[in-house]
């Protein structure tokens, strides 16, 4: 497959011996799993009678789904950017993750204060 910027690189292509893009991909996956863990904890407590916890619980699970699916796309984008000699930095993804985490922490605090 060939685009205007040349052949599209295969996502599993090895770019350097340090496997930087793959490690970054795995870091995104781990963070997604972290969100899933927090979501599971909150929902677990929600079913013990604290139904407010359903809201942050679902928010965390949504974040987990978003991060783990985005990680794959991000990996492809990173490999493509590196091949073209561009910076793989993407401020929107970073900002969105930071906002999601902050909102989740704030709802966590609110829930603790209310219970």
């Amino acid at each position, binding site marked *: 497959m060939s685009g205007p910027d040349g052949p599209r690189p295969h996502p599993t292509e090895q770019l350097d011996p340090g496997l930087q893009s793959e*490690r*970054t991909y795995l870091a995104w996956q781990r963070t997604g799993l972290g969100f899933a863990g927090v979501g599971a904890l909150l929902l677990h407590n929600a079913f013990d009678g604290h139904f407010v916890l359903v809201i942050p619980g679902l928010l965390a699970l949504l974040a987990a789904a978003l991060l783990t699916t985005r990680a794959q796309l991000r990996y492809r984008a990173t490999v493509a950017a590196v091949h073209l000699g561009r910076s793989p930095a993407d*401020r929107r993804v970073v900002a969105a*993750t*930071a906002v999601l*985490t902050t909102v989740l922490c704030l709802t966590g605090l609110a829930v*603790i204060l209310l219970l």
Partner: protein
Amino acid sequence: MEWLRRLRHRTRDRWTRPVHTVGEEPDYRFSLANERTFLAWIRTALALLAGGVAVVQLVPTFSIGWARHLLGIALIVLAIAIAATSYARWERREHAIRLGAPLPPSQLPRLTGLGITVVMVFALAFVLVDVARGHR
């Protein structure tokens, strides 16, 4: 009103201008390392949040009634501090990397270490009080 126009221009610039326009294209490995460091801080915040929720929801009550809430709130406040500053930290470092400047210093590792130490000392104190009172 010239200053107002300039201020608006600058704030808009700050948000629409991609990080890519400052300095020069860095070694991509530095950018990816910066991203992974950001993600590690996010995971730290998530772990502190989980710890805070768990200490209030899952841990049995101490003989001091407010003990669990004190620990939980402290952990979650620390998580909020880390999460809320994480983007600015990532951007500052990305700038420095692109300009070839030294990485800006951060007080956050010190603050996190201090915060966790304080929480642990309090947790130990609560457990010792329980043991002394024969609570369990």
